[in-house]
């Protein structure tokens, strides 16, 4: 088990190195023209361009540059750890911007993920157990709605009804939980729900299908033959075996959202990492975009590592493979 975790962690480090190489290649080697010019943003001064060129070490061979890039990332640069460079457009280190924006995105994802996991899995189980009943059909209707409704439309409708008309919730914007916990929840409940809806729908359908498939397995018949209650058969035997695909999807979805809850963040003006990436792109602020991209890539790798480790806990066959 320990050996397995060590092995998976080493793999994760290797994958991060490759991801950094690709990111580096895309942003430093591929662009036509002087990267320093692109790094400097829209209206650079000659002095800032010279400064950037020196800081990036663009006069050195590419492997030296990549080495420095990796070294900065892992050991930090003059602005802290991990070393993500400096945003010349905003005049602040990228790390500081990321540090400010990350909690917003992570809190958004954490709340939404909790909702979609609880809602999706419970409705999925209910729907599989009550197959072909009215409850099942209603659940499938919910799935269809959740998958079809665009997030921006849902977000705007939610704001219009619950904030503008009913005044039940807070509106757009972000209120830090440390300053005003009530305001935080009041402002987050809509983005959480809207972001969770699509995923809840997908998880409902996946849970239902996986569970129905598992319920046809021979070991479920064995469980019933033992005289176990239907509840134990479903929860302890069938759901347990259905968790693997759910955990896999969950890890990937959470990781992808780290860099990509862009629409929800925009509609509710949360100004998290997605917003940082968008504004960075619009201002041609390459260091900022690069920072978010690397963070997103690392999030994917780390979540994959978590999923791998979760497998080993869930399925003994993986542990000894």
């Amino acid at each position: 088990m320990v050996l397995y975790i060590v092995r998976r962690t080493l793999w994760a480090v290797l994958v991060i190195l490759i991801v950094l190489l690709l990111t580096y290649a895309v942003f430093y080697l591929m662009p036509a023209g002087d990267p320093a010019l692109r790094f400097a943003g829209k209206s650079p001064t000659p002095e800032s361009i010279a400064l950037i060129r020196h800081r990036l070490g663009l006069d050195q061979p590419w492997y030296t540059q990549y080495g420095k890039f990796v070294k900065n990332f892992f050991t930090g640069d003059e602005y802290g750890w991990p070393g993500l460079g400096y945003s010349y457009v905003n005049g602040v280190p990228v790390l500081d911007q990321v540090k400010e924006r990350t909690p917003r995105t992570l809190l958004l994802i954490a709340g939404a993920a909790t909702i979609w996991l609880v809602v999706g899995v419970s409705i999925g189980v209910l729907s599989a157990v009550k197959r072909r009943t009215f409850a099942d059909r209603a659940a499938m209707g919910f799935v269809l709605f959740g998958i079809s409704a665009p997030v921006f439309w849902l977000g705007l409708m939610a704001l219009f009804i619950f904030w503008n008309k009913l005044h039940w919730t807070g509106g757009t914007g972000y209120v830090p939980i440390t300053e005003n916990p009530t305001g935080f929840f009041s402002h987050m409940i809509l983005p959480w729900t809207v972001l969770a809806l699509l995923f809840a729908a997908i998880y409902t359908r996946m849970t239902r299908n996986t569970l129905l498939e598992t319920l046809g397995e021979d070991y479920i018949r064995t469980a019933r033959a033992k005289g176990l209650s239907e509840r134990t058969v479903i929860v302890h035997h069938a759901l347990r075996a259905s968790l693997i695909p759910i955990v896999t999807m969950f890890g990937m979805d959470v990781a992808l959202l780290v860099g990509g809850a862009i629409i929800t963040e925009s509609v509710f003006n949360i100004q998290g990492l997605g917003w940082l990436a968008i504004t960075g792109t619009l201002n041609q602020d390459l260091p900022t975009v690069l920072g978010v991209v690397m963070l997103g890539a690392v999030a994917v790798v780390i979540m994959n590592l978590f999923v791998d480790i979760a497998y080993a806990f869930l399925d003994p066959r993986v542990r000894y493979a």
Partner: protein
Amino acid sequence: MTEVVLDVRGLSVVFPTLDGEVKAVSDLSYILHRGETLGIVGESGSGKSVSSLALMGLLNKERAHITGRAQLGGRDLLSLPDDEMRGVRGKDIAMIFQDPFACLHPMHRVGDQIAEAVTAHKKVSKSIAEARAVELLGEVGIPNAKERAKDYPHQFSGGMRQRAMIAMALVHNPSVLIADEPTTALDVTVQAQILELIERVKREFDIGVILITHDLGVIAETANTVLVMYAGRAMEFGPAQELFAAPQNPYTWGLLGSMPTVERKLDELVAIEGTPPSLVYMPSGCAFHPRCSYAFDKCTTALPDLRTVPGGHADRCHLTPEQKREALNSIREVASR
């Protein structure tokens, strides 16, 4: 005669489908005594598994229409409500299945799965249930049972898994153990061990065993009584010795003729012509008549009764005892040449 533990009367199982009714089991009756092994034999789709699953209450009642009676310890299994049946299943009547690779939960420890069978019917502590699991694993011949109980099914060989399934079935000393093709998925050497084990636990636990198989060799080795099924119906039912010495039904003759032995080479085997009938569009009269080389007019129109023939056991065929004796003699003459 010893105590009757299971009395099945007129069991029928019908699955309504879009194509029509699938008559998986029709009017099946048999009795099982304590300490007896009843072998149920027949081709795929003859209803041998379905009839047992019906007794266990493991068929989906929304999709299967089950009629008849099955007395077990003063209760009719087929008319028990679901929650009462759950109290009987795994306690008074237990079942093991064909593929021990698929029948154990891959993510739970073998010992835990057996302990779960203990606590399903008895309010005991986890440690007592686990001790019982270890005891039974030892009983069915798992060496070092205390340690092996902590293993997962994938760490067990096929034979050991089937032993574990048997241990699980024995937890509450059931009156009836149904073994549905328990050796089909196993190596030949292991098959014999598992059959011996089933025989041993039958004696030690004093239970009635229903052994479902398509292998007459398995039946010949272990069964006291044999039930031959075809297209959901009993074709022949009687004591094993008698049935092998003087089989009465042309279908049984076919089964025996297609059974390889050391003396008989493969090219001497006589396969039964044709394939089993559709259970939706059942042939008229005797369901076996399209494949029967002894069929005559009456066979195509009237279903023969299951009658006790001179010689002592029940058989479903229109042939007269004289015709049967003659046919059987000529078959044996050909075979001995």
